[in-house]
């Protein structure tokens, strides 16, 4: 019996998998990790009750699921703490990038996982602060702070600029609101 989700999953996997893996590579250090992340996101998205009218709509859900699952992973496995320690210990000489994509991936890797996730959702997915906070289980204040710090670091590393802040940055205590 062919169910509604099956052809949609096949189409998304067939047509959009490379794009999804490319996005995940902005978050995790290897292509294998990125593929794992994308597959987890696809399974969780299509296992849920949500229905999609088009592959594009489904892809949008999966893209957000990639980021939220990435943050879940880091939270649960203590990767964030380790990443912070690595950043603190970094001698300050980033590897020489050879392409635009690796240049960006390297710069993103220097951010903390939550900064990375917030920057990707705000600047690639064009999600609002509220949407980003909701997707990642963070307070809006924390999202603003992560985005502000992350964008500043990326601009410094990549020689880019960003439009005037779309949202005023209010420094508040960083706080998660989602339970374990």
């Amino acid at each position, binding site marked *: 019996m062919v169910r509604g989700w099956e052809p949609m*999953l096949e189409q998304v996997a067939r047509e959009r998998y490379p794009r999804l893996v490319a996005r995940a590579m902005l978050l995790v250090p290897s292509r294998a990790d990125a*593929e794992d992340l994308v597959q987890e996101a696809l399974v969780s998205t299509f296992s849920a009750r*949500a229905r999609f009218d088009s592959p594009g709509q489904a892809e949008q859900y999966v893209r957000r699921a990639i980021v939220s699952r990435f943050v879940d992973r880091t939270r649960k496995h203590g990767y964030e703490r380790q990443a912070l320690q690595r950043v603190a210990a970094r001698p300050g000489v980033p590897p020489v990038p050879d392409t*635009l994509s690796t240049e960006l*991936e390297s710069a993103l890797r220097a951010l903390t996982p939550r900064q990375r996730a917030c920057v990707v959702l705000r600047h690639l997915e064009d999600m609002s602060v509220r949407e980003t*906070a*909701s997707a990642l289980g963070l307070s809006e204040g924390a999202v603003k702070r992560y985005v502000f710090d992350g964008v500043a670091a990326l601009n410094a590393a990549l*020689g880019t600029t960003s439009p005037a802040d779309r949202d005023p940055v209010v420094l508040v205590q960083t706080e998660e609101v989602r339970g*374990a």
Partner: protein
Amino acid sequence: MRELADLMNDALAERSQSLTDLPTAQVGERLHRKVRFRRARRHTFEAGGVTAAVAVLGAATWLTVDRGDPAPAVSPTVSATPTPTSTPTPSTTPTPTSVAVAVADDILGLPPTYALPAGLLQRTTPGWVLSTYRSESYPSLGPVATHTVVLSSPAGELYRVVDLPTDSQVRLLAWEAGTTSALVSVEAPGSDDAARAVLDLTTGTISPDDRLLGATWYVGRTVSGAELWLDMPESETTGTLLRIEGDGAPEPVGEIVEDLAVDPAGRLAVTLPDAGMTTGTSFALLDLVDGNRSVRDVGVEGRRCHVVGWLDDQAVLLWCWDGSAADAWTADARPGLWRWDITADQPAVHVRDVVAGEPYVGPWSGEWVRDGVVAFGAGTVDVFGCWSGAYTWGDGTFTLVEGPGPRDDNVFWPRTSRGDVYVEAFPGCSGESEPGAVTVHRADGTSALLLPVPPATGEVPLWATGLSSWVVGTGR
């Protein structure tokens, strides 16, 4: 100077074009299998109702399980032999707890069962358990071997009540012992929408009720006997609590944020006060009769809390932790239990700190056992992982009710009835899941396996699904 967003989009396009050797076809096939399995598993999860749907520890794939000593389980008195065509000859005067005297039938996808003796349903009393088995083999998930309503005696003797269409999904929601009909939800073939319905246990006739369709979850009953349903799409965290009195139309009672816990009497529900919240320092109390809603600060300074469940009709058990800590389950968060008396205009009272190695009690996980005692499935403080067992909390003590059995169960969903704790347990939190089994742990200290997993056969060495819903018979 180049804009960051432009650079990000260009870099993304460049990376996408470089990924030309991905095994897309194989990935699609693998994902397809996993999604089918998850969806089938989710259907089994949902049989537990709202609390199950918001299982706090998630279907994760990590770390180890802290094992406790399993509570002793008493095997059912039925002994099965491979005689699929045998005709059971039950005694003519069944007792309230045990009637089987014949050899049980082995039917693919079911544990050993007897044919239902005439009149047995009408003689059942609270403590008998009604269940549905909808068994699919692993890993192909199909076809459905059987979809059958099975009745369990308090001793664990199993009787086949009625067969259901294998292309539908019928989940038991409520059943009054001694009666021949049950409240169910029904998913039509190929649909994820479930409808409220009444199942005639003598004929298998399903009478759908189009008053409730779609993403509605049965919650329970109010003090007046009205049914409570939660209308909350799976992708949403807010919903509307609905009340159905008899044949009347569903009436909205109030807004529910994330989840709710109904007091033992069915008068009040506690929920979160604002959309977007998952923890807080205040909670909303919703009157289930008149719909009045009040938001109350629990007054726990410097901490955030989540609701475990009701201790009695006047007090809620809270799990609170350091407000600046990221996670509620770590020892660093200095978690503890608080008692919040809703009738007193006083802060919640600190009951006990909980330290590393003790149970971590997730939000909305508590089931009232008797006044002052709550049952729940729990993880372990400072161990990120799955459920370590089913516990009760009472008199200042955690008591392990059921731990991982030979299958290394790591999901535990307790329900309670008349002071007894019924636990559905299965492996499934880490890795792929197997069917659940239900054991009753009685207040008198005895236990009995009531609903076992379908046995493996040469044809089906492993079942992906089996027990799909169950309810404990209630009194009138």
